[in-house]
């Protein structure tokens, strides 16, 4: 029996994740011990505190470049930057999740187990305080995401994927209103998500067969000097990629996105659109840049085609959408395409610009969903486009804010949408992927139309009878809105600090 060598563990580097997982566990316990009345405040405070603490830890560890616990986790520039981004975006999303004043009791159902449409369900719909499980669930998901972007071997990645996916499936099902839709969204998300994880896992198996190990550096070495059949490598890589592309919502693995975004409670949608995207692209970046960099010439055209397809699907389908949440879902698909353009640059510039894009887009999308949550009628949020006609006349400030965010999505200068698009396109041209940029530009033209349609509707149409009232945003939603818009503007006008940060962070350790 040989001596079992214990791997060294750099706890400091793992601290952010530990904090979150710990806080999540504590949250579960609190669910049991804390009386219902005060639970919401405490849970929200705890999760926010955990996020802040984790963020502090990330900031403190900003110089760390290490691989720890036996090669399972890599804490390097991209990890820390993406973790930081996830934490900030997650914290902001938490504010949205914690909003309880816009709608009485919040956006979440009080007891998900109650059958939809039953007598009890009617009762709880009328203002019982929402469930507080959402906080530990969110914290778990955040922890999983932090681990996902740090994962340095494929197993860790798989586990992290599940750790952040499973809470999300649940969160999707917790909407207070339109519960049927919410449940359907959860079901679809869950089934398709598991389906994709299975592909991912099967890919892991193949890669393991090919490389004899699952650490990314091992894969990298094996790709450079293959000892096994290349078919294993390519089949494995293909299957592996599918799991990641699914999470990142790239066509044709985007199919879940519109349904889930529409059905899920709006704060959760916002959370997914902002944070899941960061996590998914973080892992994708790591896998492509660290493990498979050696076969870039082979995967660039395939993934490039996927990127183009994604941009087109997102842009073209957005044109005829009539539901705002669904429209934003397609827009987020198209944005995934643009992100992919940055990823496929496969150079430092690509890495840093993709990270920049993720942050910029995350804030804009949070603001967008925050606004959606404010326009409501008796049945909850009024997300059908026709209901927004002339809203600019009724609530100019809200309409102006939304217009600004839409302009950002359309990539108009002086918004972060422009600088981030510029960054990824620039990186792609530099990386020799001009064709992607050309398609990116063409789809941007298409995509401008649906945004503009909304703007036209808000400002240029006369308000009708059915134009809903706009709720006065609660403090938390105001904060989200404010932060989202300010960051969108700030990154549009003075993106330099963040660009510099992403550039400093753009070095993977292998």
């Amino acid at each position: 029996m040989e001596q079992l060598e214990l791997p060294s563990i750099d706890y400091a580097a793992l601290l952010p994740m530990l904090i979150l997982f710990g806080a999540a566990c504590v949250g579960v316990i609190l669910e049991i011990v804390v009386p219902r009345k005060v639970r919401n405040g405490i849970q929200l405070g705890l999760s926010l505190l955990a996020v802040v603490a984790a963020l502090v830890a990330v900031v403190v560890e900003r110089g760390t470049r290490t691989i720890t616990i036996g090669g399972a986790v890599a804490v390097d520039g991209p990890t820390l930057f993406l973790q930081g981004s996830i934490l900030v975006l997650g914290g902001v999303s938490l504010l949205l999740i914690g909003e309880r004043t816009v709608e009485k009791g919040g956006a979440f159902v009080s007891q998900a187990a109650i059958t939809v449409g039953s007598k009890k369900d009617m009762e709880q719909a009328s203002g019982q305080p929402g469930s507080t499980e959402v906080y530990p669930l969110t914290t778990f998901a955040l922890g999983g995401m932090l681990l996902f972007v740090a994962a340095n071997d494929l197993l860790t990645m798989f586990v992290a994927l599940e750790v952040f996916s499973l809470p999300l499936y649940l969160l999707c099902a917790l909407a207070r209103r339109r519960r049927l839709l919410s449940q359907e969204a959860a079901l679809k998300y869950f089934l398709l998500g598991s389906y994709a994880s299975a592909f991912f896992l099967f890919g892991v198996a193949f890669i393991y067969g090919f490389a004899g190990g699952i650490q990314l550096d091992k894969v990298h070495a094996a790709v450079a000097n293959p000892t096994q059949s290349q078919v294993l490598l390519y089949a494995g890589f293909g299957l592996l990629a599918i799991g990641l592309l699914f999470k990142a919502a790239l066509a044709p693995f985007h199919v879940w996105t519109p349904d889930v975004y529409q059905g899920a409670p709006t704060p959760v949608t916002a959370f997914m659109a902002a944070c899941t995207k960061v996590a998914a692209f973080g892992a994708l970046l790591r896998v492509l840049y660290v493990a498979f960099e050696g076969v870039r010439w082979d995967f660039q055209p395939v993934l490039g085609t996927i990127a183009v397809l994604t941009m087109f699907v997102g842009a073209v389908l957005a044109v005829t959408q009539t539901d705002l949440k669904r429209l934003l879902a397609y827009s987020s698909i198209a944005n995934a395409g643009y992100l992919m353009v940055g990823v496929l640059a496969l150079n430092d510039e690509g890495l840093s610009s993709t990270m920049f894009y993720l942050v910029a887009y995350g804030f804009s999308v949070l603001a967008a969903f925050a606004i959606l949550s404010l326009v409501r009628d008796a049945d909850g949020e009024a997300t059908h486009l026709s209901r927004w006609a002339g809203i600019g006349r009724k609530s100019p400030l809200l309409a102006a804010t939304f217009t600004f965010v839409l302009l950002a999505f359309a990539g108009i200068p002086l918004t972060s949408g422009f600088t981030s698009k510029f960054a990824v396109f620039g990186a792609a041209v530099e990386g020799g992927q001009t064709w992607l940029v050309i398609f990116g530009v063409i789809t941007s033209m298409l995509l401008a139309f649906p945004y503009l349609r909304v703007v036209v509707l808000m400002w240029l149409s006369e308000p009708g009878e059915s134009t809903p009232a706009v709720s006065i945003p609660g403090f938390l939603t105001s904060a989200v809105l404010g932060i989202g818009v300010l960051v969108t503007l700030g990154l549009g006008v003075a993106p330099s600090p963040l660009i510099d940060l992403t550039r400093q962070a753009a070095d993977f350790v292998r």
Partner: protein
Amino acid sequence: MEQTVEFAPATGVLSLIWLLVAIPLASAAVLLLLGRRADKWGHWLGVLSVAASFVLGLVFFANLAGLESGSRSAELSLWEFIAVGKLQVDFGLLFDPLSGVFVLLITGVGSLIHLYAVGYMEHDPGRRRFFGYFNLFVAAMLLLVLGNNYVMLYFGWEGVGLASYLLISFWYTRPSAATAGKKAFLMNRVGDAGLAIGIFIMFATLGTTDYGAVFNGLSGLSATTVLVLGLLLLIGACGKSGQFPLQAWLPDAMEGPTPVSALIHAATMVTAGVYLIARSNPVYTANETLQLVTVAVGAITLLMGCIIGAAKDDIKRVLAWSTVSQIGYMFLGVGLGGGAYALAIIHLLAHGFFKANMFLGAGSVMHGMHDQVDIRRFGALSKHMKITWLTFATGWLAIIGIPPLSGYFSKEPIIAAAFEREVAWEAWVFGLAALLGAGLTAFYMTRLFVLTFHGPARWTEDNQHPHESPLIMTIPLILLAIGSVAAGWLMSTSVADWLTPVFGAEQAEPHGVLSHTMITILSLVVTVIGAGLAWSLFRRGTALEPQPAGVVVTAARRNLYTDAFNEAVFERPGIYLTRALVFLDNKGVDGVVNGIAAAVGGGSGRLRRLQTGFVRSYALSMLTGAMLVVGAFIAIQLGWLV
């Protein structure tokens, strides 16, 4: 042709020649800007300003005459107009013998017509505006003849076009007047475009647009270039002077008040084409073909004018076609070149007097006949408006060339010159054309005169009260009549000498196909035949309604189908083209764009159906995608792709 053209700088009094343009221009500005505040005295300011220009013109003319004949010119640069790269165009004026006589004609005849207009327009509420436009015209016309380069000429050229437009459509509430003004401007613009391209050629080949430099550089140009240049200038000249094929606007221009017809569409502006060719005489002299074309244009137009003029019943239209025809003579003259340049200018000046005289006479008749213009409804007016009758008679006799009235001295030499073409067939063709024209002129002018002033009265006392015009209108008539009588004799030699510095010394007369005496006799004979025929035909008046007529008369009544031609070839296709383009732009060019948008929308509408909502179909799309991705990778690995 190796002479070099040089102009002496303006000195002394002559450096004030800019005042000639500035005074009427300032007056026009005052009249147009002050609005109704100037209604009471505006017309007098208008008259005064032109009269002042006339006086100044006389002073300058005298000064010019005082200069040595070798340097009898005054060039004055006011300011740099356009100075870009090699293109240097000054806002420059040139007062030389040629522009001198034009200045006197314009301001002299202009003053008289202005004076006349004070009376003629007395009851028109727009009199002040009328004088504003009139002064604007005088300023532009003076600029045209005084410019020292082609750009200045063009400046004035378009300026008179504008004034002409404004005055033709002066009574703008009449649709016919508005249309006529537009037509005039448009056809003029066709000519202007030719002139403009001519200027471009000068700059492209010679790098200048100054008269002197262009003329001196001509020897360096190929024959083709000179030909093209000359033809383009000719197009410009045809447009402004109502020559074939751009003659159609001039008769319509009679929609304007009669003083306008007299000043602009008879005496001055329409002769600008003649001025242009005379001014550019080195260009035309340098190319035989060019001269031939010019002569041909002149001959065709003079016959055309006569023929149509003989068939018209509107007093002003007859006079208008007569103007077309007479300017044809002038074109013939300038086309013949050599000594005929001066002849054309003399005819121009003489024509300025007698045609202005007749137009004003016509105006006087209309004034007395309640704006009736149909000569079939006149007759016996000699008893009612004596002065008008007498002055009109001088004009009539002058134009048909009865010695010793001015027309005789100015037209007959041109006919003679035509017979002196070096190529025999040309001499016969153009000579006979000119001769025939003289006969026809005598015919239709006599017809006009007889039908208007003699024969039975074909108007009724119920609605017509013929009366003589007031003094302010008859005085100009009388003065112009004196000019019509005396001008020819006075000018026939003096002006030719005076213009020698511009056109060069008259070359030795080549012997024509007919002797000079013979031509004189012939032209008098055809004139008498024509006049006699008309007298005998119309002495007893004519039917009030148009009578059926033969092919020739019908054609003449319809302007020899030139209007029909224009309509069929330019107007209608133009309208159809415009309509087609409007359709094309909306449905075609814009349609492509909207089509793309619709296609995206339609594609989007169809594609979104793929999002069926069934989770299993989503799984299928994922599986398909997965198989494609993995398949693509494996294909790449096996070397099937890339």
